[in-house]
């Protein structure tokens, strides 16, 4: 029987099968950020251990930092300590660091691909659950906790148990106005917030093949919201074109690249390979999606209404009631009638240049509705520069949106960009958990196009009719 892509990458990274039955898996790339690494470096220091491969380890700051013009002068003492600790730790252990002063700084999952750190066929980890993003390149990439960060720093390996495999196949053609974000929200809605736990998902089918790398990253990014260990997409010419683009300092070049391309072309699931679980979606039936609750699985069509508590798959009625109560919503309310206070366009899910262009296209020549605050936050300083070169920043400013510096920003309530209690957002990020964007904040997850349209209308609207 043939092998899946996941099994091929796994097999190529087995250092040793341990007596316990665990596999010692080699890790090719390790990304680090300020929040989940300080205790790991402390552990190394306590035990007198070095970082085994600082050349395979890369650090940046993203979660904690302000995205306005105060960014170089972080006033929050705890945040500043965390940022300075990362700077000190990376200097002490010889790890490359892209700090606030670097023009390469950005969200860890955005700069990985940008710098050519992310490559097909690799194993990659980061103390961050959205590491699954890098699976868009056919890289087996997953989030780990701080103890595992320390383990990888010290040994460049992880003790792992093989996951099950999940085929998510999306066929047909995406209708106009429907995006990668809508695909993944719909998948999570259909399989549930824990539906892919214990699995590595491979996204397949015509729709996936037709997506650009940005769209593929959006999809793989949210794999974790269905519980998956990782998401994968087989690399193809689009992947190779991305990796061989001019400005990828860490990607192979010349002969090394030729050899790598030969290997990368074998990174496909064999025809006769079997997955443990299958899911299929026909893109023709897709419409823009909007989340209405406090889990990414609590999603519906923009044309639909907030559901009755007993009409929600995978969730107990009392949990739905609690979610609706938190969200300040009544069953039966049309999604398009829900007003928004804040629109956030950014995060490792949707902050790449393609996302910004899509939002700009909607905002061009229009004005943000009165009383709506709009933040547009590029994923990296490189994307910021590119957007400015294309004049997108002017489109955003003229529409009345705030154009920010790179960072996680309002994706999580850890830096100054936060919702106030009961403020309601349309957000292109990946989590609508209670308090995720700030204590008491109410988050609705959507695509960049839908977020931009909501910014103009002041409430959710079907972007397909947004002329």
């Amino acid at each position, binding site marked *: 029987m043939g092998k899946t892509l996941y099994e091929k990458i796994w097999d190529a990274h087995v250092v040793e099968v*341990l007596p316990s039955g665990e596999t010692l898996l080699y890790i090719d790339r390790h990304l680090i950020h300020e*929040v989940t690494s300080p205790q790991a470096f402390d552990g190394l220091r306590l035990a007198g251990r070095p970082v085994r491969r600082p050349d395979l380890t890369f650090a940046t700051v993203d979660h904690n930092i302000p995205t306005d013009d105060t960014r170089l002068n972080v006033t929050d003492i705890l945040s500043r300590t965390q940022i300075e600790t990362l700077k000190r730790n990376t200097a002490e252990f010889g790890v490359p660091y892209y700090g606030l002063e670097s023009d390469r700084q950005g969200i860890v999952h955005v700069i990985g691909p940008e710098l050519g750190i992310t490559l097909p066929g690799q194993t990659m980890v980061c103390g961050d659950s959205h590491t699954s993003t890098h699976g868009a390149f056919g890289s087996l990439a997953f989030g780990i906790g701080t103890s595992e960060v320390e383990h990888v720093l010290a040994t460049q390996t992880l003790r792992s148990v093989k996951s099950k495999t999940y085929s998510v196949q999306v066929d047909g053609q995406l209708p106009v106005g429907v995006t990668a974000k809508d695909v993944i929200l719909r998948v999570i809605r259909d399989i549930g917030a*824990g539906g892919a736990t214990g699995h590595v998902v491979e996204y397949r089918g015509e729709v996936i093949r037709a997506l650009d790398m940005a769209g593929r990253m959006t999809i793989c990014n949210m794999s974790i919201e269905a519980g998956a260990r990782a998401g994968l997409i087989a690399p193809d010419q689009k992947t190779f074109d991305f990796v061989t683009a001019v400005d990828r300092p860490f990607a192979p070049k010349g002969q090394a690249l030729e050899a790598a391309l030969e290997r990368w072309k074998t990174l496909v699931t064999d025809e006769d390979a079997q997955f443990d679980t299958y899911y299929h979606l026909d893109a023709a039936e897709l419409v823009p999606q909007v989340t209405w609750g406090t889990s990414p699985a609590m999603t519906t069509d923009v044309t639909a209404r907030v559901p009755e508590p007993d009409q929600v798959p995978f969730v107990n009625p009392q949990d739905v009631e609690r979610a609706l109560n938190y969200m300040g919503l009544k069953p039966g309310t049309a999604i398009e009638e829900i007003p928004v206070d804040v629109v956030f366009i950014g995060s490792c899910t949707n902050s790449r240049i393609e996302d910004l262009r899509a939002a700009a296209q909607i905002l061009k020549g229009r004005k943000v509705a009165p009383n709506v605050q709009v933040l547009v936050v590029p994923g990296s300083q490189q994307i910021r520069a590119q957007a400015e070169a294309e004049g997108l920043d002017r489109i955003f400013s003229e529409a009345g949106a705030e154009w920010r510096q790179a960072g996680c920003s309002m994706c999580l309530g850890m830096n100054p960009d936060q919702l106030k209690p009961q403020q309601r957002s349309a957000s292109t990020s990946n989590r609508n958990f209670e308090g995720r964007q700030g204590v008491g904040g109410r988050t609705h997850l959507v695509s960049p196009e839908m977020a931009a349209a909501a910014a103009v209308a002041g409430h959710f609207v079907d972007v397909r009719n947004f002329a």
Partner: protein
Amino acid sequence: MEPFVKHTGKYITFDRANTDTDAIIPARYLKKIERVGYGELLFMDLKQKKGEPLPDFPLNRPEAEGASVLVTRQNFGCGSSREHAVWAISQWGFRAVIAPRVGATPGFADIFRNNSYKNGLLPVEVSEEFVNRLFAHSPGQVTIDLEARTVTAHLPEGDVTESFPVPDGAREMLLKGLDEIGLTLQFASAIDAYESRHPEVAPAA
């Protein structure tokens, strides 16, 4: 790490499915650079409102005193990879969390489960029926025997025992309280050998 062999203790219940790590410990508390001081931050935004404790929240009820096992619903610990969630639970005083598998949805999210093992907090996945029994008699006593991979509820109607899954590797680490990194470093020559037969690992720049 403190070994986990067998534990008998009081359980309390928290009736909520899909509890995410933002609920376990909100992001604004992740700014510390230490590993300790998280216990009192557990469930911060659920247990209080504007600084006032909510008396009905399980951790605020009198029976929470001395509890060492938390019984809850499926897909516990979903969301972010923050190990702070596990630190908060174990530093509050819990040694184990019990949650059910319901259909295709497991008791615990993957990363949370891994993080728990590394910190001597035992995630115990059982049947929904077993958890329902615990909910029906809360608070109560359970015995978790890692050696035997069983959990026994000491209920008014008598003892009920169920087995739970735990990977061999994690079990061995927990039973002996081992330093996992130290153990892996014993395979340094295997790692060296892998690196020499896998030359493409080095980045270009």
